[in-house]
């Protein structure tokens, strides 16, 4: 066997290890509902299948520890949600985007910077201020200062009934310091990346 072949074998081992790490990261990300920085610090969580069909579009509640829980039932009434949060002292910017689209990044100065790795993002002020969990989105007012805006972007798949692995909806949560530019829709190539081996959603999600 030549040098090139031996090197290829070693590199493929490394590639397989990276693929494995990436899959594990995807699973962890979905469980924790924490954020991954996609393009320019977007904290995106792809959540397969949401079946809740109860009425009002969302529910907002305050927890004993001062955090605010937002449960989204349907992707509508963004303005009213912003109003409800405003009354609780949180300036929010909520966008519902069509499937396969996301808001262009660069909407303002993102707390936590335009950083990259999921680990760094988990520690960023944005991730502390707005977190996705299996029970809803938690906003911590203690981590949102005056002049800062909690930006939440949701994309919904039209097809909620297919058995094919697919992204049902996607959430981006971050905090922008200072002015927030309006959402400009752009294509989201990650939309079609459902993660996991062979495109299956990770087990347990």
């Amino acid at each position: 066997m030549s040098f090139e072949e031996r090197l290829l074998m070693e590199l493929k081992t490394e590639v397989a290890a990276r693929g494995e790490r990436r899959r594990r990261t995807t699973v962890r990300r979905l469980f924790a509902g924490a954020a991954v920085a996609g393009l320019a610090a977007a904290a995106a969580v792809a959540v397969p299948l949401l079946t809740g069909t109860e009425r009002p579009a969302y529910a907002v509640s305050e927890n004993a520890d001062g955090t605010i829980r937002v449960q989204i039932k349907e992707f509508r009434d963004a303005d009213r949600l912003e109003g409800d949060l405003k009354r609780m002292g949180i300036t929010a910017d909520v966008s519902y985007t069509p499937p396969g689209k996301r808001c262009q990044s660069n909407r303002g100065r993102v707390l936590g910077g335009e950083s990259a790795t999921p680990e760094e993002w988990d520690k960023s002020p944005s991730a502390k201020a707005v977190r996705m969990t299996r029970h809803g989105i938690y906003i911590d007012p203690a981590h949102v200062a005056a002049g800062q805006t909690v930006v939440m972007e949701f994309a919904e798949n039209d097809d909620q009934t297919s058995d094919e692995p697919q992204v049902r909806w996607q959430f981006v949560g971050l905090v922008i310091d200072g002015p927030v530019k309006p959402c400009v829709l752009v294509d989201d190539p990650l939309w079609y990346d459902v993660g996991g081996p062979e495109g299956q959603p990770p087990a347990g999600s």
Partner: protein
Amino acid sequence: MRRKQAEIATDPVAFEAFYRRHVDAVTRFLARRVDDPHTVADLVAEVFVAVLDSAQTYRSGLGSEIAWLYGVARNTLSAERRRAFRESRLADRLNGRRLLDSDDLVRLEERIDAESHARRAFEAMAELPEGERAVIELVALDQLTVAEAAQALGIRQGTARVRLHRARRVLRAVPFVMGGTTR
């Protein structure tokens, strides 16, 4: 397409196809610049590890695979020259020269000999300003188009063309340097 390219870092099959397409070109690229077979072997390994690290930076719409790869190879080589790469943990683990046997050494030395003209041309270029030297290397020695060289260096095509023109004026007398395309 960005996702497809990122797959080479996580999918062994996609990576193998990419590797087989380019391993010869990368080896020759390095043999034109380095005359020690052990170092060439280390660097080939290092370039492909760098490919894994930066696969997500590739945008297929913005130019050719080889131009992107030569850009990665150039960065790897300058890192080596700064010796920074020795600090990389992966380089300790995946060290190319460990994989060489005597047949490989002979083959690599032949490659290095075959590129000796190119290395002499590099010496002649040593006096050029760095920006001009980088362009003429990629065009005259590595046979990239001007557009590809610009992509590899992350500069505009017009800038690359101007630098190429200046470098050729200085190096008119050196064989090899006038080769390459002007597209």
